[in-house]
């Protein structure tokens, strides 16, 4: 088993995660600890289990076996494996933020409403939610675009709205799946700057799936998967730890 060493107490501690789809093994006993304020890139070829690992860590889809402990500061430790779908859905919207390649913004809503929606679902009043959404959008360089509908925004602007939505709830862990995958290199770099500033720059954790080595090298740590096995775990500027799960 591969075990990675970390400097800070982990907010997410995954032990022996295993997940299969029929005869295909997507995760084969993955162990991973993610600490607060850390940015982690998950890399690997298509079908290596990157997205499955991200979904497992975020409580989107549970692994078949293994344990996954969420230990956020000031909150009770939670074993995601023990939560039902409803509880995990609530946990995701309250404790996690997400930025996906597709953006997953609601086309009928304005940029401001898309961001405010994340707060309103958690019970914040519409007036307060809209105010906070406007502030976050302005901080991300989208002042004046609050009332634009999603179809009226460029790809980079859409991703900034998605980042604003992931950030507005104050989530301490943000998951991103190819957040710059659909953008040109310049826009992608700008979006990545914003994403890193909003997350690790603010003391939060970022877990990001990417194919792009230039994106991965901006992260504190890079893990590589192959056929469901975690084959390497390296920190920027330090030696690469390479192992085999079996």
């Amino acid at each position, binding site marked *: 088993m591969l075990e990675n060493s970390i400097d800070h107490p982990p907010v997410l501690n995954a032990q022996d995660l295993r997940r299969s789809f029929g005869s295909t093994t997507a995760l084969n006993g993955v162990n991973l600890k993610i600490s607060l304020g850390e940015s982690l890139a998950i890399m690997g070829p298509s079908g290596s289990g990157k997205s499955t690992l991200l*979904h497992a860590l*975020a409580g*989107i889809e549970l692994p078949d076996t293994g344990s996954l402990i969420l230990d956020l500061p000031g909150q009770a430790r939670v074993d995601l494996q023990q939560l039902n779908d*409803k509880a995990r*859905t*609530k*946990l*995701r*919207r*309250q404790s*996690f933020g*997400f930025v*996906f390649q*597709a953006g*997953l913004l*609601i*086309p*009928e*809503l304005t940029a401001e*409403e898309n961001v405010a*929606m*994340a707060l*309103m*679902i958690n019970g914040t*009043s*519409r007036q307060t939610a809209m105010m906070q959404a406007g502030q976050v959008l302005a901080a991300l360089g989208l002042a004046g675009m609050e009332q634009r*509908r999603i*179809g009226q925004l460029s790809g980079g602007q859409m991703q900034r709205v998605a980042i604003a*939505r992931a950030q507005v709830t104050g989530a301490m862990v943000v998951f991103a799946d190819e957040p710059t995958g659909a953008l040109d290199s310049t826009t992608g770099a700008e979006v990545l700057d914003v994403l890193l500033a909003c997350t690790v720059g603010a003391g939060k954790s970022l877990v990001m799936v990417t194919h792009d080595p230039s994106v991965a090298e901006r992260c504190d740590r890079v893990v590589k998967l192959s056929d469901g096995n975690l084959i390497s775990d390296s920190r920027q500027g330090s030696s690469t730890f390479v192992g085999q799960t079996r």
Partner: protein
Amino acid sequence: MNLLHLAWLLGRPAKARLAPQVLTVSAYAMVSTILLIVLGGAYSFTSFEAEAQGAYLPLAGIAVVLLVVPLLVLGSAAARLSARANDRALSSLRLLGGTGAQISAVTVIQAAATACAGALAGVVLYLACAPLASLIRFQGAPIGKAIYLPAWIVAIAVFAVVLLSAISAAAGLRKLVISPLSVATRRTVPVPSWVRALISVGSIIVLCLVFLNLGKVTESIAVIIVVILAGFGFGLLVLNLVGPYLVSKVGKRKLKTAKTPQQLLAARMILESPAESWRQVSGVAMASFVAVVGGSGAALMQQSATDVIDHSWYDYLPGDILTGVLVTLAITFICVATSSAISQSASTLDRAPLYSGLHRLGMPYSTMNSARTNSLMIPALTASIGFAIASTVLVLPLAGMAVILSPLTVLTVIVAVLLGLLLVRASILVADPKKLLTAGR
């Protein structure tokens, strides 16, 4: 490879697109069944004595005209779903170098073939439902075997459904962008202007004047019947002018007052396309119109029908008008409920990636479902209440007298409308994203 072969290759039943295909065929089956039962009911009147036919056939004609809108909406929903069901195949065809004309031809052929399968299933359903429909009583006796249409009328009805689907598919294509990479809905946000409302009000006044003075202009019953039928047809067009404007007004009001995520989302979904929102529930407005005007007329005639019955055809007319109103209401609501279920299911399937993605982000399916439900029921209630009020104003003396003289009949009609709205509400349960998107997992 000819277009027919291509259409078969791309549209043949496949496990991956089974749900929309079954939905589409079921929709056409419903259209055909309802159409055949309505025609069967109208056709049964031809067995009445000549004098009775003179009264019953025009009334049946009015009912058929009134049912055209919900039937067209249902047919259009089915056609759009049919085009949507094959979106990936159509995109692939574009990628392989297919021209826009070829895509259009393949889509229309597929829609027509699907409609043909649905219409034939509808004939079977009609034959299965006919015994039940034959129990409806007119002229003091059940319709009986007169509900069964001659084969040539059934053939024409099937052909009409197939033709409708082809025309709807061709029209629906204008709203889709079929690129080599995907099929997307053209997103425009038309804002219905107040001019629509003005034209509509003006048209209704003109219509009222025409109806009120009809007797002075001509004494020919045939001409009067034609003018009334044309007037109803014109009224339906007017409804479609004012409807989107009314829905957009209500949508804006809801947007202002929205407090919860589902209310906000529902208001935005309505405002995304007020015309589309209206289209889905226009049959409900029709039902309100039938309920108020037909219900008032039936109530007054019921009141006058207290004398001794001498078994002439006229004695049965008051009761039969009430039966006709209730049957028209029932059929209208069945059409609206079916088309709502189809449109909403198609919309849920279309938005599957977004709904699943939002669920991953932590938005409960129940929130999305509630927003989706409200986005249909708010326009439906607007249409129902709005047009009930408008129709009451139009026939105010008649409606007032009906309430006083025959409250039980009025109550019966109101209960029928409420049951209809409940049916529409229940029908869209099938489009619940949680059930539809997680089924079979």
